[in-house]
């Protein structure tokens, strides 16, 4: 919470505080506490998906898949914040901007490919496993 308010302050006093914001970039390398919090969070966020899959926690595999994807997303954010020390003021906001742009491209690439190709797949001629085995 305090970090957020600091960030807001930095944004509000962008011009005057620009130097201060960069001078405490010593802390943008992170403290041991930061790494420890990140490590514990990452370990928990890794352990739960493995537990879900190995012990078949959810009856419906689709529910399990959605849950572990959410865990993966949260863990990626944790890594970005605690290990890569990403915040809205590093490099004057350009790193976050590049990240948002990349994320959009990644989502378009992934969702677009899966969507288009699944339609293409369901429009293909069906093939039995026997026919498949005799494929060249």
């Amino acid at each position, binding site marked *: 919470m305090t970090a957020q308010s600091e960030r807001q302050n930095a944004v509000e006093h962008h011009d005057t505080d620009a130097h201060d914001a960069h001078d405490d970039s010593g802390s943008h*390398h992170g403290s041991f506490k930061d790494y420890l919090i990140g490590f514990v969070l990452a370990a928990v966020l890794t352990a739960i998906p493995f537990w879900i899959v190995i012990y078949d926690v959810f009856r419906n595999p689709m529910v399990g898949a959605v849950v572990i994807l959410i865990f993966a997303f949260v863990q990626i954010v944790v890594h970005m914040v605690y290990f890569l020390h990403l915040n809205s003021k590093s490099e004057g906001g350009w790193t976050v901007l590049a990240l948002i742009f990349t994320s959009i491209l990644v989502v378009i690439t992934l969702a677009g490919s899966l969507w288009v*190709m699944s339609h293409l797949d369901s429009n293909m001629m069906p093939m039995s496993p026997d026919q498949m085995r005799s494929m060249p």
Partner: protein
Amino acid sequence: MTAHSGTAFTEIEATPNAEATAEPEAPVFYVTEEHGHAEGSTMLGFWIYLMSDSLIFAVLFATYGVLSRNYAAGPSPADLFDLPLIALNTSLLLFSSITYGVAMLEVEKRRMGLTLFWLGVTGLFGLGFLGIELYEFHHLIEEGAGPDRSAFLSAFFALVGTHGLHVTFGIVWLVTLMFQLPKHGFIPENRRRLLCLGMFWHFLDVIWIGVFTFVYLMGVLLA
């Protein structure tokens, strides 16, 4: 540059008009960004490299996603993947991330011995990760589940292999810095290199989150 061309232009023209007389008062540029922060642009540039690298991985993930059900009557992820082994691999990479963080904290304190120690530990975790991955690949190929078996396995080896290749180059970079660091000390160049390698290393851990979730866990879950 503009000042030079401007003067050359006035010499050739030799007819001082209003624009030519205004020329000597070249525009003054104020550098609003702070000085002496040269590594700033390098870090941003390296970050943009990492973003472009994640596009490579996005395409490989998309390829895997499209082909992941095309077994060609061969083995499926549930037949092949050994999740406890992957969990071990994941924890090795996670440990290497935090030991690299600790090494960076020792760099801040300018303690050479401990920095090298934690970089070495990071490298060993990285080597452990690579060793397990190579063991897994070897095991799969021995079982006849090599990249030539099915489209699913081709995409799997391409994606996981590319990540493993990145880790390999990360270790080469790490070893290089472990020689450069004692030789030149904590000079700004070395600290910049360490920061870049740190971003690279943590970034590989981020990609691995996608790999173990999307490839291994969802592969076993939905197979």
